[in-house]
């Protein structure tokens, strides 16, 4: 069983001009479903295609076209729900959310307001070893993405590309359980990690495949605890929603700014208007999106083109049976099976590819040593050159062979680093390289003894000093290692030097 005991982190407290304030944050994360085709049409979801080439007549909302749901997108939403330990609703339904915008040719977005496919779940967001926030998930629903408008190609025109129109999104709605900007970014990071493990969203924030709307309010210390006891929102302040952020850094900065803005208004005796705001990264501030105000009357109603979505428990069970190991479980297993520290296990499980790589290196070997080599040598080197683990010139088998050579005592740790460098830059079989280039550690005591004798004979003055001060024996060890080109086994040299000097 997983050990998931943890204590909650302290909420962030902001000192206003008059009193202390706390933050309350809830998030709506839009995650693009990883699929080949769109949610209701057979057009491609491929990023970066020619404008309006991934568009069918359904996406362009030509009269008479009807939506047909992509079953794999439904499966992905179910898989995501299971990954967030959420309830799966066997019956869900689609609604129309009505508004007019040039990149929404239907005049409505097909979404799931009243009956979402996924119900309540949770995400455990670790802030430090043993300190984590449990963020409750309220729901996940499936919906269509809108198209893209480009405003800077012409002074008088906006250009519209519908390639993204109709691509499946999962909107993951959290409860207001997040208590600070760092927690908000960590929550998005954890969600992204889980989605990537599940393979349900690639998490590419730069391309907009994962973006967040952040609801921020402030309250006096103590008010939040009363909300948690009663689930009565009247204990909390009025919230503002900051729309459409696709960077962890901006999310944090926007929350910081927004909290201070609200505190200033409240301490001035003012009142917060519930509204939608945009974050401007250039100015580092949020501003009201007044233009969308009126459009907020979405007049939702059940989509008459789509029957309710009914799925079978057996199908859900089948998806559950095929679930991959998730980050929390993998991390706990790495700590238990390989004796890794919390930190090392976190680093190695951050990305699935890295975790797989490590497991291949560690299999049947010393886990700690494997972790050390993967994190410090390989990750360090890859990071320096801006490479991903998938681009590593050293394979898991090669790195494993290096670890084997150290384990067997064939090479010293120092030589191993040289060997790693050779394998990284030139490639090749580590054992063969060691053999061919004479890098093997000398464990033959006769040879080492000879080297020790030579160093002692050549340095009589040092011998006298060392006899008076045994700490100086290290100098002889260094000389011997140097004389043998680093190939002598350091432990054996140590022992021999001490014996020969009579220490």
């Amino acid at each position, binding site marked *: 069983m997983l050990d998931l005991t943890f204590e909650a982190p302290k909420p962030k407290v902001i000192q206003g001009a008059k009193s202390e304030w706390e933050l309350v944050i809830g998030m709506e994360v839009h995650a693009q479903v990883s699929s080949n085709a769109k949610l209701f049409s*057979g057009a491609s979801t491929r990023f970066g295609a020619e404008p309006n080439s991934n*568009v069918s007549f*359904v996406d362009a909302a030509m009269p008479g076209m009807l939506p047909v749901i*992509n*079953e794999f997108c439904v499966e992905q939403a179910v898989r995501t729900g299971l990954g967030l330990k959420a309830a799966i609703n066997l019956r869900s339904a689609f609604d129309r959310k009505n508004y007019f*915008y040039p990149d929404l040719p239907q005049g409505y977005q097909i979404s799931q307001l009243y009956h979402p496919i996924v119900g309540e779940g949770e995400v455990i967001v670790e802030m430090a070893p043993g300190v984590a926030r449990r963020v409750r998930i309220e729901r996940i629903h499936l919906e269509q993405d809108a198209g893209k*408008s480009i405003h800077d190609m012409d002074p008088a*025109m906006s250009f*519209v590309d519908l390639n993204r129109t109709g691509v499946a999104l999962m909107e993951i709605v959290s409860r207001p359980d997040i208590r600070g900007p760092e927690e908000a970014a960590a929550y998005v990071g954890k969600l992204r990690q889980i989605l990537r493990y599940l393979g349900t969203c690639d998490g590419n924030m730069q391309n907009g495949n994962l973006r967040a709307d952040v609801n921020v309010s402030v309250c006096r210390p103590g008010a939040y605890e009363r909300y948690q006891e009663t689930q009565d929102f009247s204990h909390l302040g009025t919230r503002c929603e900051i729309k459409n952020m696709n960077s962890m850094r901006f999310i944090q900065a926007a929350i910081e700014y927004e909290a201070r803005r609200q505190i200033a208004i409240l301490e001035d005796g003012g009142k917060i208007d519930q509204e939608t705001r945009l974050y401007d990264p250039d100015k580092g501030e949020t501003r009201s999106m007044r*233009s969308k105000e009126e459009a907020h009357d979405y007049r939702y109603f059940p989509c008459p083109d789509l029957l309710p979505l009914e799925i079978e428990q057996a199908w859900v069970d089948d998806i559950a049976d095929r679930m991959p190991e998730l980050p929390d479980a993998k991390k706990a297993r790495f700590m238990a099976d390989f004796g890794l520290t919390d930190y090392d296990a976190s680093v190695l499980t951050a990305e699935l590819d890295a975790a797989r790589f490590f497991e291949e290196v560690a299999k049947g070997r010393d886990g700690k040593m494997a972790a050390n080599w993967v994190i410090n040598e390989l990750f360090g080197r890859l990071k320096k050159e801006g490479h991903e683990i998938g681009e590593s010139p050293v394979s898991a088998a090669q790195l494993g062979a290096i670890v084997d050579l150290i384990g067997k005592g064939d090479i010293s740790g120092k030589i191993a680093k040289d060997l790693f460098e050779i394998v990284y830059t030139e490639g090749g079989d580590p054992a063969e390289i060691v053999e061919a280039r004479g890098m093997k550690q000398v464990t033959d005591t006769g040879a080492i003894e000879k080297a020790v004798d030579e160093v002692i004979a050549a340095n009589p003055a040092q011998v006298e000093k060392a006899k008076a001060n045994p700490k100086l024996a290290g100098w002889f060890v260094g000389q011997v290692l140097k004389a043998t080109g680093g190939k002598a086994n350091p432990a054996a040299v140590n022992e021999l030097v001490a014996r020969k000097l009579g220490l």
Partner: protein
Amino acid sequence: MSIDIETARRVAHLARIRVEEEELPALAGELSGILTFMEELNEVDVEGVEPMVSVTPMRLKRRADVVTDGDIQAEVLKNAPDAREGFFAVPKVVE
């Protein structure tokens, strides 16, 4: 429930339907009539009755996750009043 002229004007605007000022009272009256009829329907006791979504027992049709459509840029743009470099061109939308 009755719809006043202001509400009728607002609903028309939300639906992007142009209604002349002098037509608003009549429209408000018609909408009120429809809602009054709905209220009458609401008096029927439907406790425990599943809402009917289809007259025949049908399951929502599904498609496989295969790209079967698209690559028809010219056709998609054909009816657009203005299109440039593969994009729909519309009057500037300022955010």
